[in-house]
């Protein structure tokens, strides 16, 4: 795999390519999402890119009625809340991500422990194009 720096910019570029990538310590095997330059376990700087399976389960969530402006622009508001959460990945680490395919108007219907699969939300065009990490129930 090509050598991109283990940075947030690289991480987001991979998301644009529908790839969910972390870094893996070559010395001790620890996996980091988003990627880290320094292994916090063994302090090695010998990292490699690691594509995550994109599977996990819901560890925490919230359904937001008053969101930041970029979510308001997507059409979310008090009448149309959205869900965002924390997913524990099959590989072990956790990641925060938007949660799709659930009813954010009925938060009690959403269950911690639900198996989830990764999804890439492409929003905006041209200079404003961005990809958001999301998960959806399997």
């Amino acid at each position: 795999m090509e050598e991109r720096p283990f940075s947030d910019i690289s991480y987001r570029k991979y998301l644009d390519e529908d790839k969910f990538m972390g870094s893996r310590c070559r010395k001790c095997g620890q996996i980091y999402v988003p990627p880290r330059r320094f292994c916090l376990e063994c302090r090695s700087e010998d990292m490699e890119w690691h594509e995550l399976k994109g599977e996990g389960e819901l560890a925490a969530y919230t359904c937001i009625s008053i969101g930041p402006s970029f979510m308001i622009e997507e059409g979310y508001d008090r009448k149309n809340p959205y869900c965002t959460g924390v997913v524990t990945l099959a590989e072990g680490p956790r990641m925060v991500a938007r949660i799709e395919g659930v009813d954010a108007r009925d938060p009690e219907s959403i269950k911690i422990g639900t198996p989830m699969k990764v999804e890439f939300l492409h929003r905006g065009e041209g200079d404003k194009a961005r990809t958001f990490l999301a998960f959806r129930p399997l």
Partner: protein
Amino acid sequence: MMSGKRKIGRGVAIVGAGMSNFGMFPDKDSKDLFAEAFSEMLASVDKGFDPADIQAAWIGNFSNDFFVHQAHWGPIIADLTGIVPRAVTRTEGACASSTLAMRDGLMAIASGMYDIVLAGGVEEMSKCTTEEVTEGLALATSPYEGEAGYTFPGVFGALATAYFHKYGAGREHLMNITIKSHENAPLNPKGQFKQTIRDLMEARKAKAAKKGEQVPDWADEKEALFDPRFNPPVAWPMHLYDCCPISDGASCILMVAEELAKSFTDNPIYIVGFGQGSGRGLHACPSLTSFEANKQAAAEAYGMSGLTPKDVQFAEVHDCFSIAELIHIEDLGFFGEGEGYKAVAEGETRREGRMPINTSGGLKCKGHPVGATGTAQMYEVWKQLRGEAGERQIPGRDLYIGATQNLGGTGGTCTFTIFERR
């Protein structure tokens, strides 16, 4: 390896404290608010004090840059209070900014560099819309949380679902915290909200009757708090009454070297333990029901003071959201993990309870002008320890050890400070 135990090189005491009224003040700016706090602080020094003796100042401010488009608040406050041309430094640790101001003052006196310093904070938020404030505060979440659409209430909402799931608690348990804070609210003349939940329910009923609408027939506080017309969701399970308000305000304390303290007052309050920790975002923190920064701060402060959680008689903790209060009282060791919500339900954190928490009404009722909150928490402990808290004085107890816990961002910064009256 470094030694784990921290020490204060030279004793430090608080000999004066002041805070402005907290609330939404369209006709007051940050200088007006700080002037209120500073005047009260000067008047509070029992044996009198010449402000020309202040050798340096630290002023906490999170984001007036965003809220009122003015940065570099240190010199503005130094000019206001006549500290110019002596040193002033702005500190920023999100909602913990003014505790960091106190910390810098503490280190400066402990090191021997200064003997008399001012620490305080200010924030002016209400000139923005709710949406703007939400966005301004969200600047202090981690970048990954921001991208995932989290707001401040959203991060705490997610922590609440994890806590509920792990310990079997629910919204009704968080409501106990809200109801308790609002019981203290009418007793704090400087607070933003001065009504109990019952008062607010009656006001709502009266309003409905006046408008000719159906009058709600809630049986008790919790029934009202479960009613989304009374208590709408913000970031489920965080609802309006789980969240602190948008506030303007200022606060400050006068800190001096221990050997000088008695020349200012016969009743100084000593800072005997301080700790500060840092934390990661939700994705990387080791637990979703605890703040790692809290654990670090608590271990340092207890170690420094030689005290244990059992020695602390009461505390002000950072209840920016109801769930935060619950997590803090467990992280600080006042209650066991997963036990906090039961203790709250049994009334242990009420003013008359075994461990009074947020006698000021907390951020929820007193208000949360973020940069002012840390030293405002210390103002409450100063008042309680000196027996000057008026109607909200903790009853029937000789108070000598109190503490404040201040959280910045979504747990990126946490502090814990222990105070003693000797």
